[in-house]
């Protein structure tokens, strides 16, 4: 079995047009399943290439649905992350089966119940891309951009309504760079897109379903440490434009509060800097480089705190930025 990938590109002159991008939806489902169950499916996730392996049928179906617009990397492409989700061996698989997430064939995390496999795959990939490489500064933040390329970075702890707000903005035409991992270039402070499925939790699942009846959703996962989790496919246009970095224009710290009117409050730059440090996955590793990059970010972007309850009002407030 060979890895499923686009054919190797022949050497070509610089003037020749680039080879056409092959996307997962261009491939027959049996080929996707065969690759995932064999040597792996090479997905381009923003700047990184992940070789993903799994034989779990629910995950194969989820990848086909939620990663349909993602490019499949050519066979000669470099692989950043070897990832696999598989059933745990042992007699307990007949009683209460568990799944494992592996990077480079090494088991990361405790085994999870089989029913949590979809959430585990996405969280495992988040881990690999956020603390596994260290070539970029990684913030725990959603990033969305306007058509003119100006972007809003939204760092927030879980439960602050970040993912819901992100999904609402994306449905209203903002481009998705990421709903979880804000990748920042250490050279020029540009925001590097890594669009992947959006992680909806608990009541936000129904909110988004009501607003977008045609939303493409992954399987429902109950009783995780974060409650009910469901993933929403990213807009195809955002995935197609994953190669276009954006400029940070706003850093918005969102808070959802019942019955609160949508309110943007300007925030001091020093305050924003410190709150960004708390949301930086690799600040302590990058050291001075992260300090400088956060300085550039807080200089370039206007920091504000944002409180909201109604998603329509929130989108209007962002459009008015």
């Amino acid at each position: 079995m060979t890895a499923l990938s686009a054919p190797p590109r022949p050497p070509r002159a610089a003037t020749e047009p680039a080879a056409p991008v092959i996307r997962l939806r261009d491939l027959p489902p049996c080929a996707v399943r065969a690759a995932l169950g064999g040597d792996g499916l090479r997905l381009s996730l923003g700047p990184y290439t992940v070789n993903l392996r799994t034989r779990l049928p629910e995950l194969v179906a989820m990848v086909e649905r939620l990663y349909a617009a993602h490019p499949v990397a050519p066979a000669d492409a470099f692989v950043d992350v070897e990832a696999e989700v598989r059933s745990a061996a042992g007699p307990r698989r007949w009683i209460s089966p568990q799944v494992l997430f592996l990077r480079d064939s090494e088991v990361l995390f405790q085994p999870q119940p089989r029913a949590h496999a979809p959430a585990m795959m996405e969280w495992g990939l988040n881990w690999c891309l956020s603390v596994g490489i260290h070539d970029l500064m990684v913030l725990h933040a959603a990033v969305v951009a306007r058509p003119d390329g100006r972007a809003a970075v939204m760092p927030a702890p879980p439960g602050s309504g970040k993912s819901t707000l992100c999904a609402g903005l994306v449905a209203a035409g903002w481009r998705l760079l990421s709903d979880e991992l804000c990748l920042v270039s250490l050279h020029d402070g540009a925001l590097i897109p890594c669009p992947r499925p959006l992680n909806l939790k608990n009541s936000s699942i129904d909110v988004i379903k009501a607003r977008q009846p045609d939303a493409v959703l992954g399987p429902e996962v109950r009783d995780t440490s974060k409650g009910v989790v469901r993933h929403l496919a990213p807009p195809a246009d955002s995935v197609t434009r994953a190669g276009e970095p954006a400029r940070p224009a706003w850093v918005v710290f969102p808070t959802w509060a019942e019955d609160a009117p949508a309110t943007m409050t300007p925030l001091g730059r020093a305050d924003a800097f410190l709150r960004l440090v708390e949301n930086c996955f690799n600040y302590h590793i990058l050291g001075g480089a992260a300090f400088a990059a956060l300085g550039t970010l807080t200089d370039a972007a206007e920091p504000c705190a944002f409180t909201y309850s109604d998603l329509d009002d929130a989108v209007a407030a962002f459009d008015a930025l």
Partner: protein
Amino acid sequence: MPSPPSMRSELLRLMGDPGSAPALTPAQWSRLLPVARQARLLGRLAHAVQGAGVLPAVPDGPRRHLTGALRLVAAHHRDVRAEVAHIMEALKDLGAPVVLLKGAAYVLGDLPAADGRLFTDTDVMVPAAALNRAESLLALAGWVPAKSDAYDTLYYRRWMHQVPPLVHFRRGTVLDLHHTLVPPTARVALEASHVFGAARPLPGVPGAWLPAPADMVLHSAAHLFNEGMFNNALRDLSDMDRLLRHFGATEPEFWDNLPARARRLDMETPLAHALIAARSLLGTPVPEAAAARLMARTGLGPRLLSPVFDAALQPAHPACRGRGAAAAVGFLYLRGHWMRMPLRHLVPHLTRKAWRAVLEGLHADTTSQRAMR
């Protein structure tokens, strides 16, 4: 698929000739980097490639992993230096020498074995007579015993060469406080006072000492070849290779003294294992006279066991570790316990551990809920 040993040889070849890094294809890098990472040698590979001046010529994809590894190494080294400063501050009134061990000694001693190395904890050794006082002083400064059950605590206190690992309550850093280099129950008659007697003061850090060069090598050899923990085996062997090359070039009469020192500390067998493996895998230059003197005393044992160690020195990656390697690691784990304690202690201990593993398996359902935050 390449045959099992070839990925390890490919990694070691590249580390020995880092100037050839730009010639690798992206597909070769894709296979090599996971193996380097599993062998805990990615940082050292990156350091070698950077040292050869060819890092900018490595393609973007693999280069970001090498650059990232260098950043991680730099952060770990910063942390180790800071941690040692905290430890020395806490122990400044101990009135006894504090000897830095393993990685901390390599970094603070500016030794080549620190290059590209990552850390999980800090190891220091104080004389047994000062152990209680050291624990009290460290507790006052925030180091408390890591969560462990009564059996673990008893096991460490009664049979081990260190107290149970200490964790700093605020920083979460782990400190291993030793009073000797090997477990007192081990089949090695090591006198800790010899190690303290030969230690050298660490310039610029009052109260801190480094083991004598030969003792650093012997400690590393005993740790790897007697204790049976092969998680970082190739990295540990690479540390020894770098220590041997460095001390062989900088310490007068290092190779003349090493076999005698091994005899004095009852560590001739682990040293023989280390020299055989380092020579064959890493090309470590071992003078014939020193090797002959050592092997004359250890007999055939180390040579007979060397294929087992060679298999266990495979990186923990499926491209490297076949069934033979798994069997070798299992055998050496048992051998490590056999070396560490007499049978009358070993049997109850392993029974207890096996029983606990069964109980933990039964409880896995509840604990797995807490796994991923």
